[in-house]
């Protein structure tokens, strides 16, 4: 499986697989073999490609703290897969489209306004349910397609956020 880490600001992507107790890693095209033997109380012997080191390891949430080679490091796991698929989907589009036909019952932002991820833009009502349409990313409201009280069809554009210039 692919694991991504931030080690003191350095990004490391490691493909991992396992043979029993032995972990195989591929980092930047280089393959490594590693294993961990616990000595007790957070103390371990870490073997990497035949070299053994005494290390201390403690994990807390997404962070793994390692004392190795005379200093401590924080290794932060970065989510991939799920996080990226969440960032995918309609989230990348510039327009929020109506999930079903309905009526605009509240408009919380104005065109030109800066909005933050998760901020409610408009509230729509359809099938007797109120649904807030939230900002799917930070941005600037470019257009609110329907004024308060207007009705719209399924897939009609509701709010357009100004396009983001792709980072070069």
């Amino acid at each position, binding site marked *: *499986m*692919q694991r991504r880490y931030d080690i003191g600001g350095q990004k490391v*992507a490691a*493909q*991992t*697989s*396992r*043979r029993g107790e032995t972990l*195989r*890693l*591929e980092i930047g*095209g280089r*393959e490594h*073999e590693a294993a961990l033997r616990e000595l007790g109380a957070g103390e371990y012997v870490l073997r990497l490609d035949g070299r053994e080191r005494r290390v201390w390891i403690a994990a807390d949430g997404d962070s793994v703290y390692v004392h190795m080679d005379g200093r401590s490091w924080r290794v932060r796991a970065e989510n*991939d*897969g*799920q996080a*990226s*698929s969440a*960032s*995918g*989907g*309609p989230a*990348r*589009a510039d327009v929020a489209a109506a999930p079903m036909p309905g009526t605009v019952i509240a408009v919380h932002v104005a065109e030109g306004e800066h909005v933050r991820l998760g901020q409610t833009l408009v509230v729509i009502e359809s099938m007797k349910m109120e649904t807030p349409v939230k900002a799917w990313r930070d941005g600037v409201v470019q257009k609110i397609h329907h004024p308060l009280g207007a009705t719209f069809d399924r897939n009609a554009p509701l709010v357009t956020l100004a396009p983001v210039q792709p980072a070069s």
Partner: protein
Amino acid sequence: MHRIETHIDTHSEEFKSKAAQYRELVAGFREKQRAARFDGRERGLERLRRQNKQFVRDRLDQLLDPGTPFLELSSLAANQSYDGEVPGAGLVCGIGIVSGREVLVRADDSSVKGGAMYPLSVKKIVRALDIAIENRLPVVHLCDSAGAFLPMQAEIFADKYTGGRTFRNQCVLSKMGVPQVSVVLGHCTAGGAYVPALSDYAIIVRGTGAIFLGGPPLVKAATGEVVTADELGGADLHTTTSGTADYPADSEQEAIAMAREIVAQFHQPRKADIGQAPPEPPYYDPEELYGILPTDVRIQFDMREVIARMVDGSRFHEYQPAYGTTLVCGYAHIWGYRVGILANNGVLFNDSALKGAHFITLCNQNRTPIVFLQNITGFMVGRDYEAQGITKDGAKMLMAVVGSEVPKFTVICGGSFGAGNYGMAGRAYDSRFLWSWPGSQISVMGGEVAAGVLTELKVRQMARKGEQPTEAQIAAIREPVVAEYRRTSSAYYATSEIWDDGILDPVDTRNALGIGISCALNTPIEKPGYGVFRL
């Protein structure tokens, strides 16, 4: 089981000189393979870079679990076709480990002719998916193909085992409950659009991935509509509106990571239980095969020496060691899997054919996969042998091979001629995998014999016209016949035409068989059933 006693003196001059020759042969094969994988890609790779796409081999490296093997299939497909301009037939197929699961990977190589489908490309895909069906292997499709190579459409489209068969095979896999994941890394145009559509899971890369029945040029020609590839079949369209693909990804790397995560969700099916011993390397170094194998198929060698360098601990239980001695039969283990081995040590006589048929039924009775090691000039010919029923004994062997339900594996080590090819489970006999060694030859009869027969026919034709050819004329007739025969009977021609699943360095055969057997055990082993044996 006893360790095979070798009769090879690895310090002898003969061994050393044979080894040097065979190594040269293998080096030639390795060079062809390297060239097919990497050479002549400059323009294609430059285009890939511009498109923000990766080379197919880099994609594979990201997909496969680190430190795990990859058994590439038919790496030299199409090496003798299309003026050699479509190496590997424009795609990579193989078996490897993704998220701990054994999968078949089918990856388009768009650095070759934009990944266009030639007739042999289609044949390679059909074969790969047949392997997936026979061995119940989940499939990961890395899609990046320009679609059918239109000038050759007649050879690609309509026949039973051409284009439509690839999609038929995808449907069959799905029906069997074998999952497929497509990663759309480039265009999936026309028929290619069905590859993700028929997969259980489809991931598509924003910007570079697109799926459509008709690409923008075709749409413009057909309806006048001007539309970009992304608008027509890009990631956002298919993952938000059409539902043709399931997951959008922002990069190839992300898409491949998602594919790995999806494969990690697959159930690991139980394998057919044939009992397994702890694997053990051969006692004799497999590299010694180089000093044992001749580079000339006319030179005989003892298959026991080959078996000794392929099986666990070099141990072999030989069945009927004193009967039908031109066919060596017996049990051994490969990577811990018990196998029955049939290996040619000369021409097939009546007794060897009967022994072979008998041993095949034994292996079926005790659920033992069978490995055929071919070095066969054929069944014995001549009046006495016909009188003893050599044909009907050969027929028994064929009947046993076809009735066999245990998985079969075939390695063409040397010659593979005539009906010997059939009796020893040639391509038509549904071996789960069939591989060739670099020096092997395959044809309906031996080259010299064939050239002789063909020349004789020509000379007779001339004689009927009253011509009396001189020696020089006869030689002039004979030479091209021999040359053409040599070309079409070579392992490179066979593998180019996908008569096998690839050429193997003999030393690699043990691993290839290990993976092949492991795959084969995904499918339950049924009770054998045979037709009528002519007794």
